[in-house]
């Protein structure tokens, strides 16, 4: 994986940026995330980011991440041109900034990602304002993403996908121990949204390429609560309801408990449950061709449960840095697909190690 000189210069600038302002703070994060499942997918994701407060009103950040994907999943072995397995590398770079004045904060971010058959450029502009003696924060942002979809081994295949996303949120201090947030997400996706490889099957054994609508409007409402049980124990609860114009609906609920028994150790456990309905045009197999057809299990009805734990340890003096945290996370997920007979259950295991340095 090659990073351009622009990316390296940006990261170097952020590492050096403390010299530009008074009493700056900079945090650098390195993480390695490993995903495995019982459908022969392995994804290794090294990720690093730097966030620096250049001055009391200006902060800058950047990140670089790489997904190294190795797959021999059901989707891959039943693709239009079965190849048995593949290895793909996806690289993402991004930068962000935030400028604060009075009770207002303006922020912007850009992101670029590329892989063998997909290229994506995204930009976000946002504004937030603190109200009611900083007891309320209202935020609004807009993102635009332009994606080019290709197909490995077919240079003539070139499709476009655009997305427009608006996020709005209201965060409220409820009392001295409780914080609540309500958020709304609205998005319009226009363009090629099928998989260039995925096939659907007919009852007579024939197969045909997946075909989904070019237009998709997506909406979500989120309610989040944080509550301090004491000065060292915390509860979190999230709920999201989602629906879109393809007929998909979902409910997601997550509850977490975290504790920091002393200055140098903290831990967290959580459980996330999720349930979705099927897209209007989804079927495991079709009796006859239809305008829209998908046998993608992510468009099928399913439930899932994820149980996870995380610990973080303050390393103390480490290579001359005093503020260094190491963390380790493990999540075990289970999905049950009630209308996908090729693999009704998927087990997923995520492990993540990280280092967070402040200077």
């Amino acid at each position, binding site marked *: 994986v090659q990073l351009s000189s622009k990316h390296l210069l940006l990261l170097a600038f952020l590492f050096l940026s403390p010299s530009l302002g008074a009493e700056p703070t900079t945090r650098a*994060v390195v*993480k390695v995330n490993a995903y495995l499942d019982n459908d022969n997918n392995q994804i290794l*994701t090294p990720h690093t*980011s730097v*966030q620096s407060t250049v001055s009391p009103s200006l902060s800058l950040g950047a*990140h670089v*991440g790489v997904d190294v994907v190795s797959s021999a*999943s059901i*989707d*891959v072995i039943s693709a239009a041109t079965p190849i048995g397995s593949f290895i793909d590398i*996806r690289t*993402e770079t*991004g930068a962000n900034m935030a400028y604060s004045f009075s009770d207002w904060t303006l922020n912007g971010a850009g992101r670029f*990602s590329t892989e063998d*058959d997909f290229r*994506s450029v995204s930009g976000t502009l946002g504004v937030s304002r603190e109200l009611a*003696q*900083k*007891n309320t924060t209202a935020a609004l942002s807009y993102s635009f993403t332009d*994606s080019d*979809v290709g197909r490995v081994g077919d240079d003539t295949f070139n499709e476009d996908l655009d997305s427009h996303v608006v*996020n709005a949120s*209201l965060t*409220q*201090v409820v009392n*001295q*121990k409780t*914080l*609540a947030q*309500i*958020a709304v*997400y609205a*998005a319009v996706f226009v363009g090629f949204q099928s*998989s260039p490889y995925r096939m659907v099957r007919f009852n007579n054994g024939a197969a045909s390429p997946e075909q989904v609508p070019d237009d998709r409007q997506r909406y*979500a409402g*989120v*309610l989040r609560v*944080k509550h*301090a049980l004491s000065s060292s124990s*915390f509860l979190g609860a*999230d709920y*999201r*309801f*989602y*629906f*879109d114009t393809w007929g*998909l*609906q*979902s409910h997601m609920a997550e509850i977490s408990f*975290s504790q*920091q028994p002393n200055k140098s150790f903290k831990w967290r456990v959580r459980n996330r449950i*999720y349930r979705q309905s099927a*897209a209007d045009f989804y079927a495991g197999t079709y009796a006859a061709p239809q305008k829209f057809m998908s046998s993608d299990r*992510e468009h*099928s009805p399913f439930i*899932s449960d994820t149980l996870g734990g995380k610990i973080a340890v303050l390393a103390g003096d480490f290579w001359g840095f005093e503020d260094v945290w190491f*963390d380790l996370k493990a999540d075990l997920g289970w*999905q049950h697909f009630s209308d996908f007979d090729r693999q009704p259950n998927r087990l*997923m295991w995520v492990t993540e190690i990280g280092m*967070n340095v402040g200077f």
Partner: protein
Amino acid sequence: MRAFSYSLFILALSGIGLQACQTVRPWQREHLAKPQMTFQEDKDEGILEQHTYEYREGTIGGLGGGGGGCGCN
């Protein structure tokens, strides 16, 4: 119609909650100032996590996150 009913329910619940809010002064924020009381205590973890869910679920949004890609695997 059901979708809008759920949305209205969330909004109504939030409205009721806001009615019960207190004005908390800066010197009363000992608990609220803890990193664990932010909605994105570990931003990088959140980005990686939402990216995984985007690939593995048919629905997205409202919880931050990032990344693109075809999710063909």
